[in-house]
């Protein structure tokens, strides 16, 4: 056990700063997509946030989000991939989506299953769209595979975090999730202010 921890710390300590858009994993486009996703904190935060919210709303909402999150992301990514938009900074939509997801978790908003699914799909599509825009330079086939990698990562992340919250029975544990939502919303709001300041 101790040896495993030492190995992890050693590996983390030795690794250079991650540069998602500057280097590839060397394992092919699918893993490049997975790497891109996990090295984009705004994307990871949103995916975790949506999964936590779905978990708070129960097993059926969790199951819906398991499909809506990767599919929404994939659809948004493909729209970005084939759009004529110039590559733009996605900080404002990221900030707004983080704020929305955070507020929903913090308020433990009692949305029905279909509404949770739509919200998850829309938020995922917005993030996926900016991923798609950024991936155009890789070419359509490689970008497809990268998006598939992202969708697979999303599926696993959504499954883990929504299941974690669904399994929580003690009210105090659910409150911890809501506090995490408040933090997510706060991060979104600060990021929005930051993005507006940068544009001035």
């Amino acid at each position: 056990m101790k040896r495993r921890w030492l190995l992890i710390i050693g590996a983390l300590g030795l690794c250079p700063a991650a540069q998602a858009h500057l280097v590839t994993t060397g394992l092919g486009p699918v893993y490049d997509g997975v790497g891109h996703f996990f090295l984009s904190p705004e994307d990871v935060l949103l995916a975790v946030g949506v999964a936590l919210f779905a978990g708070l709303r129960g097993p059926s909402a969790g199951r819906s989000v398991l499909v809506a999150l990767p599919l929404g992301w994939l659809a948004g990514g493909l729209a970005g991939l084939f759009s004529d938009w110039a590559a733009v900074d996605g900080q404002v939509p990221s900030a707004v989506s983080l704020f929305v997801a955070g507020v929903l978790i913090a308020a433990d908003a009692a949305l029905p299953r279909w509404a949770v699914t739509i919200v998850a799909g829309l938020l995922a599509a917005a993030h996926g769209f900016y991923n798609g825009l950024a991936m155009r330079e890789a070419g359509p086939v490689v970008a497809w595979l990268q998006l598939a990698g992202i969708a697979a990562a999303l599926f696993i992340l959504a499954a883990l975090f929504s299941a974690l919250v669904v399994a929580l029975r003690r009210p105090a544990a659910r409150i911890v999730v809501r506090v995490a939502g408040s933090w997510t919303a706060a991060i979104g709001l600060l990021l929005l202010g930051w993005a507006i300041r940068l544009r001035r």
Partner: protein
Amino acid sequence: MNPSSRLRPLVARAGLLVWCLTALPRAQAHIEHGEAGGFASGFKHPWSGLDHITAMVAVGLWGAQLGLPAIWLLPVVFPLVMAMGGFMGLVGIPLPGVEIGIGLSALALGVMVAAEVKPKHLVWPAILVGIFGLYHGHAHGTELPPGESGLLYSIGFVIATGTLHACGIAIGFIHRWKAGQIAMRALGGVIALVGAYFVWEAGRG
């Protein structure tokens, strides 16, 4: 296995996680021009001023004194409203008397803890904490150094704020003992005195 030996690996892992997050080179998923720092610098910011530290710990202490559900309501409200203040500061919306407001927050929250004030309705502590959170957030928003990574800085900043609340709540566990209650009230008195000093300083400046 006794509870303390069960907690030890958890504490060790939490310490390792904090070390990893603060000491390792920052991920650069989306390189921006002029990024000077990120998570570590955001995490350090709330710890940089005694006025901020005392007020945030006082929020946790007061929450612990009020018990459920205030113990979680206040730490939910404070970061959200503080971020709203941070947003105002970042986009340049002025808020008058920020320094006095911050000093007053430590003074007022310290008095609440010292006197162990328990309002009938939970909305009053939430409003009070919310107003003060706005002042703290505004000060942080205007002080943010240019050229930082917005997202990583914000994540570090919010986690540090939450950690300060958690410190207050953790100290508040002593409230279950009589001596602990007295110690907490004494701590509230000290926070109020620190707050009074900052109000005086802000008034002079």
